[in-house]
């Protein structure tokens, strides 16, 4: 204790400043970090449970041509067009028998690519063919 009184005024100021920063900033930040880390692990577990694919793949950034190639592996006619506000209009045509394939494809889009499928998917049917138009927004 006596050594504190022997310190120079500058040392005391530095020490006081250190203590203030420790309690007002360092400790709350450290606590927040550990809480967030736990939350991150929980969210990750949640996502892993949601992903029911047989072979889970890592999510990728959206790229229109890469996505077109990917979609064409499921369907013959695919069109990906850029529209304002950083969105893409995707049009897919397929025979009505491939509807179940489409449901699966739609479900897994957001696990394969960092995109949000916007509401208002438009289906059109002509005879035995279905055409689907949807809007994707990458994030």
């Amino acid at each position, binding site marked *: 204790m006596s050594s504190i009184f022997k310190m*120079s*005024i*500058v*040392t005391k100021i*530095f*020490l006081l*400043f*250190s203590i203030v*920063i*420790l309690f007002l*900033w*360092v400790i709350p*930040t*450290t606590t*927040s*970090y550990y809480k*967030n*880390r736990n*939350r*991150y692990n929980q*969210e*990750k577990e*949640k*996502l892993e449970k*949601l*992903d029911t694919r047989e072979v889970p793949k890592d*999510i990728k950034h959206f790229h229109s041509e890469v996505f077109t190639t990917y979609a064409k592996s499921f369907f013959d006619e695919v069109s990906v067009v850029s529209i304002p506000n950083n969105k893409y209009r995707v049009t897919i045509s397929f025979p009505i028998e491939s*509807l*179940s394939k*489409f*449901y*699966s494809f*739609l*479900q*897994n*889009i*957001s*696990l394969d690519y*960092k*995109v*949000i*499928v916007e*509401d*208002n*998917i*438009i*289906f*059109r*049917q002509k005879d035995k063919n*279905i055409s689907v138009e949807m809007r994707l927004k990458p*994030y």
Partner: protein
Amino acid sequence: MSNKRQYITITYYKEREFYFLNYAIQTKDGFIPKDIEQFHESDKIKFIEKIRKLQAEYPNHHIVSISLVANQIVAQKSSPNRATAKIFKDTYVIQDDIDVGDIPTTLYFSPFTILYEHYKNILDDKLTLIIGYFDRKLFMMFVTENKIHQSWIIGTRGLTEKQIAERVYKSIQAYYKISYSFADHIEMLVAEENPKLLKFLREELSLHIELSQSNIHNLLHHMASNQEIAKSSYIKSFKKIDIAQNIEEKDETKESSIKKVRERHNLEDIKIDESSKKGIINRFKLFFSKKDDETASILATMLPILLVLVVGTFFHIKNSEISSKINLLDTEINSYKNSVALSSISKNIFQAIGKNGQIRRATISTDGVDLTGIVWGIEPLKMSLKKLYRDGKFTIKPLKNFRTEFSFISKG
């Protein structure tokens, strides 16, 4: 005589990367030097500890050193803004500042002062060139008994003895140009014998050269041996030199008062006194001008704040990173859930329509659906869609061949 009464002179100097330390017991009849110790500059702390130990062992002491800087000059006037030492009447030696750093020093002499002291008794009205060879530098001065006419310092690092002799000769020539006087003879004081240098000097200069040899420690012991000589120190304020007779040990109170007087006069106290006159802002400036151990103590002072800032910044960055990752994960989860919902709703709609119907246009969202199409047998479709969307509105238009055109709008 006890250690407490003996007056000792502790001498040190630095040459190249070594500190040389010695001490001698001063008596009325001269001084008795002890063994010289050598410390590498990386052992500076040990060197200073040894000085402290000697100080504690011999309270009656002076710590004496020599200034070996190259920017000393002899002048006829003192300088108020620079370190000045009076050699004799109207003759001063000046250097920029007292550069002892953190080594406790109470007396600090210029080589010019030492040279004059060494040779003053043989000077006369004839011009004598006095050379002192210390720390690979030649400290030269042209002197008569009442005046130092000119002083020079020549560095000799990397020079051969012949080249050194040539430099000395050029100095004599240069002095002749300004004074039209040649030195009548040369007195040279060296710290250690150098016969080769002496040989070349004699050949080059063709003058009588008297060589004298004395190590730096002995020169310094002599300079601090009495009050009169010691007055020519760069450090002017120092405690009185007291070479005690054979006196029995004094009582502790008197010794402690002497110790207090001694402590007031050491260099560190003077330095502290100077800095205490300055304000807080100047203290911060002083921090950046201090060296070695003082720098270490300043760093130690700043260590807590540095540590706190480093740790805080680290966790702040990590927290930001993990927060971004959490936001990304949340977006991923929500977009997946949305996709799943859309997929499920689409499936339900088409199941409800079944094979008997055909969609013209279906707009499907998580909020609701908007369907138009044709169906054969409206009732099953109605029931299915009503189950899904109770508030949905059907619009029906019968067509030929039992077909019905329908539209269905619902908000989810």
